[in-house]
């Protein structure tokens, strides 16, 4: 656990020093929020969570790619792959929590007639899913531009696809619409929350499996080496 925590600490230090990027990351969801605030406040709630999802997953993409150079050295220095992966994930979750809290407060004081518990749940799940999603994309697409375009496409499709289409349901942030329905529609039942939770849990499982498996393969101990 000690090794995981020091990886998390150093990853947090690295990310927090990208100040320009952090400022942009923090402001982008605000633009998403106000783009629909005046005419369709219920959409602005979902848009802000998608904005956070995109910014955090992009930050995770950059963090994952930046770590590629030093991770082989850290493996040789005694770290296990899961310590490197979990440490980075913990740091990104902490960044995500710091990023999303002001937006929850904004909605809390800006919007009435919404269920704040539902909104808190959407933001929490967005942070939980977006970080490993970015790490999974970084693992599969080691070039940042390609990875960023993929994440942009995913979020744009999530925003624009007709919710009746099955494609929209399999995208990683579909749960924001399900739980968003509960949060902003008066009388909406908790079945939306349940479906959203299941979707988020399945998505989380998939992206963690992809990211962790890719890291395990990339940083594996090669069979041709025997250590006495």
């Amino acid at each position, binding site marked *: 656990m*000690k090794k995981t925590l020091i990886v998390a600490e*150093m990853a947090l230090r*690295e990310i927090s020093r990208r100040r320009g990027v952090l400022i942009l990351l923090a402001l982008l969801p605000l633009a998403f929020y106000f783009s629909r605030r005046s005419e369709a406040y219920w959409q602005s709630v979902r848009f802000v969570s998608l904005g956070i999802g995109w910014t955090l997953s992009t930050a995770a993409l950059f963090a994952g790619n*930046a*770590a590629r150079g030093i991770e082989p050295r850290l493996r*040789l220095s005694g770290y296990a792959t899961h310590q490197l992966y979990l440490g980075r994930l913990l740091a990104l979750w902490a960044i995500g929590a710091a990023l999303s809290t002001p937006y929850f407060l904004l909605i809390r004081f800006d919007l009435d007639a919404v269920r704040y518990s539902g909104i808190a749940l959407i933001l929490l799940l967005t942070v939980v899913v977006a970080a490993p999603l970015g790490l999974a994309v970084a693992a599969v697409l080691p070039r940042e531009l390609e990875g960023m375009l993929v994440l942009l496409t995913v979020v744009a499709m999530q925003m624009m696809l007709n919710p009746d289409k099955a494609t929209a349901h399999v995208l990683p942030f579909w749960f924001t619409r399900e739980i968003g329905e509960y949060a902003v529609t008066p009388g909406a039942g908790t079945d939306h929350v349940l479906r959203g939770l299941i979707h988020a849990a399945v998505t989380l499982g998939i992206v963690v499996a992809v990211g962790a498996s890719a890291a395990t393969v990339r940083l594996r101990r090669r069979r*041709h080496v025997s250590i*006495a």
Partner: protein
Amino acid sequence: MTVDDWLAALSAELRRRQVDPSGPVGEAAAHLRDSGQSPLSVFGPPAAYALAVVDSLRGATRELRRLPSGEPRLRATKITKRYGRSTVLNGVNLSVHAGEVVAMIGANGCGKSTMLRICAGLTSPDSGHVQMRGTVGFCPQTGGTAEFLTPDEHFMLVGAGRGATRTAARAEGRTAAAALDWPGAAGDAEARHLSGGTRQKLNLVLSQLGDPDVLLLDEPYQGFDNGTYLDFWQQVWHWRDAGKAIVVVTHLLNELDRVDTVLDLTPRSPR
């Protein structure tokens, strides 16, 4: 350059080469005082004269090449690696003992870095195997550092992997940095702000944290100035004397008399 400046520079150059400066500097000072001539006209630049002094003392100061006598630390057997249709390594064998320095040489693209990565277990060969006894420190040719971390943070991060406390790792890193004429390792400059040579010093220091038994160094001196380059070889000899097994990838043939064994990976050359 005044006589005092020249003598001070000579003294520093001799210390850098681990030669006690008192004798040669005293003799040079006496000669200059008696002759009244300029040190540059009599002896030339301090670094060049220091080299001449070291050459004259070589037999008495250091055993330059010796047969391996320690236990085997690294044994790579029949390593073959292909990239597409191109065979880069074809049945290469390498054995490194404790207290031995091996230079891996060869033309560009002949597989030196690949061989080192295979020995470190970072790249898989198509065939062959590697037996390692002890812990490994690896210095890649490029990368191996984190852009936004300071040297101290690197020391703490890598040191923690070896089980060192933050304080111990930081102290060990700073000491190793000082041996490479890098007293600024304690500063708060992030790696991305370090010069190429200084970043390579950081890379080299990280490879030796935790006192590994085997050191695999891939052209670790890139960007070093002449003084640091000499410091580096002093460090290599120090590790050899401490019983480390060291492999240095190099293309600088003038250093081959400073190592115990040479492995030439140039195609069609004897291996």
